[in-house]
């Protein structure tokens, strides 16, 4: 629901912990340790200053204060704090990269707005503005 900006439950991966594999869930996660693999959350991901995440990430918001490498989809917001470092491919609804932060890679906007006609038409063909296609 739109009224709840942040789910109340936050899982924590502490500094001395490492997770390798797949993490999925409907809550927020704070990583101060290491995560390698896949991360898919309905909530937010905070990577603390000591956190190192190397993963395929799909979250609502991401706040990077540590190091993140990989492909990130942030449906709402992608934020890198001054201490943060990101390397990889990002797709997000909005970006905030603070001065001092490192962002190396590719960024793409997730547009939430679709024209009503397109949305209902199920896109039988790639949009004309897309990549040139040869068949």
């Amino acid at each position: 629901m739109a009224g709840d900006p942040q789910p109340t439950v936050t899982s924590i991966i502490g500094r001395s912990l490492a997770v390798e594999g797949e993490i999925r869930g409907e809550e927020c996660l704070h990583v101060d340790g290491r995560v390698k693999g896949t991360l898919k959350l309905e909530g937010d991901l905070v990577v603390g200053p000591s956190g190192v995440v190397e993963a395929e990430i799909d979250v609502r918001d991401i706040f990077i204060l540590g190091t993140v490498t990989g492909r990130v989809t942030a449906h709402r917001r992608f934020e890198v704090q001054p201490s943060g470092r990101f390397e990889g491919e990002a797709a997000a609804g909005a970006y905030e990269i603070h001065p001092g932060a490192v962002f190396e890679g590719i960024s793409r906007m997730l547009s939430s707005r679709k024209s009503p006609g397109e949305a209902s038409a199920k896109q039988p063909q790639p949009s004309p503005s897309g990549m040139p296609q040869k068949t």
Partner: protein
Amino acid sequence: MGLFSSKKKGADYPGRESRAGAETSLIGARLSVQGKISGSGSLIVMGSLEGEIDLSGELVVSPPAKLRGEIRARRIAVAGTVEGQVSAQEKIHLEKSAVFSGELKAGRISVAEGAVLNGSVAMNRESDPQEG
């Protein structure tokens, strides 16, 4: 956004864990992990996990947690559901809400009345029996 103080405390983390500041990690009820969790410090699991836990600290499995796999820790307290091989250097305690099936191995083992325990139990005598 005032979410965090801008202090860069711990930003240059050298990778050496200070035993004094062993913190607690939490896998919440609506989180599921498939894979391996390893490290020191304490861990509370309320969500689900399939795979492996290798912890030099303490593990608490709290309802509605569901764990399946191979679990090692210094001390383990189970109040949720666990299936697999579980071993503790020091001790394992099954609370009355615990549902366990598999192999249990520890220096000391306690089981509360009401706990479900299906499987094998072994006490490893070689582990140091000193109080933890």
